[in-house]
């Protein structure tokens, strides 16, 4: 026997089992070869697969496994050693690669698994985002609806339109079956069905407001689902089918008074309306959250729109009212103007037409008074004059009063003698007072300035009026007039809280108090005293005359003089005191009051034509000298008197401008004096003017005077005016010879 290197298999080759193994190996090899091919094909197709080298490894493993199984086919029969070694190599390689692959798979598989997890995660995320997208879309949809609704609601300011539009739009947006609005009644105890969507004219169907469901809805600002059996929800006739879900929401009704800037978001109002929304029956629709939100938002907007509409209504109403009032005021103003014009015309006419005859009456009566009259006639004329004076005064008073009221009266300010005013009043009142046997006394305070700046005429009128009243209303007793400068404390304690005196340097307040012991006045009547035309009837003196205007005018004058006037009385029969305070100015240059009759330099008032003109008067006759001196003093000259020619020559100086010489005295050589004076003063401008005073009316005297060198001649008697004009002429022309 030969020994071959062939390897014999364990089993005989013809065994059935061997056959099956042979076939299986064949197919395995086939499969093993085709799998990598498929793998390669699919990998080539996909671009993403990251583990190529893994595939290569895997492919190699599979190929080798296939090769192994393929080579196995040859081992079923007797095969040579080469085949066996190839088989062994293949198996060894396969083993190596398999182990490597196995080891690698440990690393790969977790990665592959994680890829899967990530994929799952992403899918979940996508689903979530989808859901959220859906939500957002719904919300946006809702928002759009709300905006549109709001726009619709707010595009009108009419209440009804707003509410109607709301219901319509809501109905449309949410596809409601029915939508209704319940408004609270005036009493606030019931809700009345005001608007509905489907029914055109809702019957005035009311529901009491204190229903638990309604309270529940009102207490929250959310939309609340309510039962369809609730009284507010029974809007449709009963159906056989299931009614749809009903939701109710409160609508706050804001009033104008609710708009406080600080708590605007809070609805402090108690009044709500109820909006009820019903989904279609028989549908399985439910109220979604976003729909509820839509309803809430709409309810808020409606509230705002309603309040705007209310405000607008209010302001329109107010504007209409104002316009009406304006028209009425305009009319009233025009009427008043017409009335004033009519009154002014009347006054002007009255003023002129009534004054003219008055004037005639007064003038002619006074002229009549001057003529020869019997006592009875004189009495009659006097009465006529008095009455017409009264009437003239009345006319003046009324005119004054109307001018005072217009404000067109202005004070005539001037410097005047205050003492003289009081003396004059006293003079005027004494006759009447003595007829009534009343004693009038005047007391002027020593610190009262003699001169003051103010309206003399009106002040006198006022004081006279008050004193006149005192006399008029006193039947017996005495009247005392006191005048003094009011000090600050006396000003303040006057019973006039609104009278605020202001002291200043060039003003003082004159206070005059007139106290009488007459019939007095009831303190209650005192405020009426100063009103126009109000007579105090209770005294019963109807024949007291006067129009009742006097005190009213006085008060106005006093007011113009920035003062105050009032009357105090303790009661009827206790007399009364009238107190008057006026503001007077202090004249700047206090004029010297009574100067003694001294031939010093007196400040003459008014008639000062030749202030300080130095003149010399020579006259032997004392009396006529005195008269001439008085004349010249009155004209303001500085007069030196001499009684003889020697004295004259001695005293004459260049300061004297004029020398008056009485030449009709025999024994005085006036011409001689003239010559001597000429000699004394050589220069012409130094020499005083020489004027002769004479009673001789012959031409000889005149010629003599002229020849002697006199500058002038005046005939005696010399009146004041003549002296004034002579001096004027003389000083201007330096010569004056009276025509004889």
């Amino acid at each position, binding site marked *: 026997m030969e020994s071959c290197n062939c390897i014999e298999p364990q089993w005989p080759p013809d065994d059935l089992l061997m056959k099956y193994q042979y076939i299986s190996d064949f197919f395995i090899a086939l499969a093993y070869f085709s799998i990598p091919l498929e793998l390669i094909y699919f990998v080539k197709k996909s671009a993403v697969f990251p583990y190529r080298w893994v595939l290569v490894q895997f492919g190699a493993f599979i190929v080798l496994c296939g090769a192994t199984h393929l080579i196995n086919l040859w081992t079923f029969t007797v095969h040579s050693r080469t085949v066996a070694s190839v088989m062994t190599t293949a198996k060894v390689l396969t083993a190596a690669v398999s182990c490597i692959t196995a080891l690698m798979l440990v690393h790969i598989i977790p990665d592959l698994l994680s890829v899967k997890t990530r994929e799952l995660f992403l899918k979940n995320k996508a689903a979530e985002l989808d859901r959220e997208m859906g939500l957002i879309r719904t919300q946006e949809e809702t928002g759009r609806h709300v905006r549109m609704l709001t726009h619709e609601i707010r595009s009108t300011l009419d209440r009804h339109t707003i509410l109607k539009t709301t219901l319509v739009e809501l109905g449309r947006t949410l596809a409601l079956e029915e939508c209704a609005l319940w408004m609270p009644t005036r009493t606030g105890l019931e809700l009345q069905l005001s608007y509905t969507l489907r029914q055109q004219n809702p019957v005035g169907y009311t529901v009491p407001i204190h229903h638990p469901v309604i309270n529940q809805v009102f207490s929250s600002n959310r939309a609340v689902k309510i039962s369809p059996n609730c009284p507010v929800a029974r809007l449709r006739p009963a159906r056989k089918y299931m009614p749809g879900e009903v939701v109710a929401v409160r609508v706050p009704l804001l009033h104008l008074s609710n708009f406080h800037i600080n708590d605007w978001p809070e609805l402090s109002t108690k009044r709500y309306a109820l909006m009820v929304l019903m989904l279609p029956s028989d549908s399985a629709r439910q109220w979604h959250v976003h729909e509820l939100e839509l309803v809430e938002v709409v309810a808020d907007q409606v509230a705002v729109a309603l309040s705007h509409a209310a405000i607008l209504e209010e302001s329109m109403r107010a504007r209409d009212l104002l316009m009406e009032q304006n028209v009425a005021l305009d009319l009233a103003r025009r009427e008043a103007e017409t009335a004033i014009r009519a009154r002014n015309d009347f006054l002007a006419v009255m003023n002129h037409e009534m004054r003219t005859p008055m004037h005639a009456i007064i003038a002619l009566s006074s002229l009549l008074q001057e003529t020869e009259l019997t006592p009875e006639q004189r009495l009659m004329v006097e009465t006529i004059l008095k009455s017409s004076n009264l009437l003239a005064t009345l006319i003046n008073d009324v005119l004054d009063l109307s001018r005072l009221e217009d404000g067109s009266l202005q004070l005539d300010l001037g410097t005047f003698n205050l003492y003289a005013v009081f*003396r004059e009043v*006293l*003079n005027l009142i*004494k*006759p009447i007072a*003595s007829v009534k046997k009343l004693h009038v006394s*005047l007391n002027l305070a020593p610190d009262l300035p003699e001169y003051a700046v103010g309206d003399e005429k009106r002040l006198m009128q006022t004081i006279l009026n008050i004193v006149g009243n005192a006399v008029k209303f006193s039947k017996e007793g005495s009247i005392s007039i006191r005048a003094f400068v009011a000090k600050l404390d006396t000003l303040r304690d006057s019973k006039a809280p609104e009278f605020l005196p202001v002291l200043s340097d060039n003003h003082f307040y004159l206070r005059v108090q007139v106290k009488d012991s007459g019939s007095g006045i009831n303190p209650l009547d005192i405020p009426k005293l100063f009103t126009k035309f109000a007579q105090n009837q209770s005294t019963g003196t109807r024949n007291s005359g006067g129009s009742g205007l006097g005190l009213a005018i006085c008060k106005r004058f006093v007011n113009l003089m920035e003062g105050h006037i009032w009357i105090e009385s303790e009661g009827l029969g206790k007399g009364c005191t009238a107190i008057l305070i006026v503001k007077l100015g202090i004249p700047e240059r206090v004029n010297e*009051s*009574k*100067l003694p*009759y001294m031939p010093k330099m*007196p400040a*003459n*008032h008014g*008639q000062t034509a030749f202030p300080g003109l130095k003149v010399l008067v020579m006259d*032997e*006759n*004392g*009396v*006529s000298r*005195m*008269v*001439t001196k*008085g*004349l010249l*003093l*009155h004209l303001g000259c500085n007069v030196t008197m001499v009684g003889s020619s020697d004295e004259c020559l001695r005293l004459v100086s260049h300061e004297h401008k004029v020398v008056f010489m*009485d030449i*009709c*005295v*025999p*024994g005085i050589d006036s011409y001689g004096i003239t010559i001597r004076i000429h000699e004394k003063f050589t220069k012409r401008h130094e020499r005083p003017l020489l004027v002769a005073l004479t*009673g001789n009316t012959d031409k000889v005297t005149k010629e003599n005077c002229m020849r002697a060198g006199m500058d002038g001649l005046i005939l*005696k*008697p010399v*009146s*004041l005016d003549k002296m004034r004009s002579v001096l004027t002429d003389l000083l201007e022309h330096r010569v004056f010879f009276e025509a004889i």
Partner: protein
Amino acid sequence: MDLVHLQRQLVDYRTSLYHEGFLDEQFTQLQSLQDENNPDFVVEVVSLFFEDSERLLNELSKALEQQIIDFKRMDAQVHQLKGSSSSIGAHRVQKLCIVFRNYCEAQNVEGCLKCLQQVKHEYGIIKTKLESMFQLEQQILNAGGSIPV
């Protein structure tokens, strides 16, 4: 007495003096010279006139009693009296003085004497009248009134 009554009386009195020729407008002039600076001007001037006149009248009387009458001097004195009275406005006195002077120039003693008597008489009257007028004025002033012009 009533103030108004007094004033009326004064005015009437004065008017009568003018009417009857006792005073002329010179007196009015005098009154117009009286103002608050010279409140007693008239009274003073009139008083001076009284003094002067009395003195002159005495001297005239004495002169006419003399044996030898100095007409010239008398003339001068009468001239003075005339001047004074005309300054006052004592109209009648003044007129008489003119007549007196004529007699003096004519050196008519009887005429002078007669005239002197007349002058004295007139002077007496005017003096009384002026004095009573001043009294009235004083009364008015005392009663608190003012002198009407």
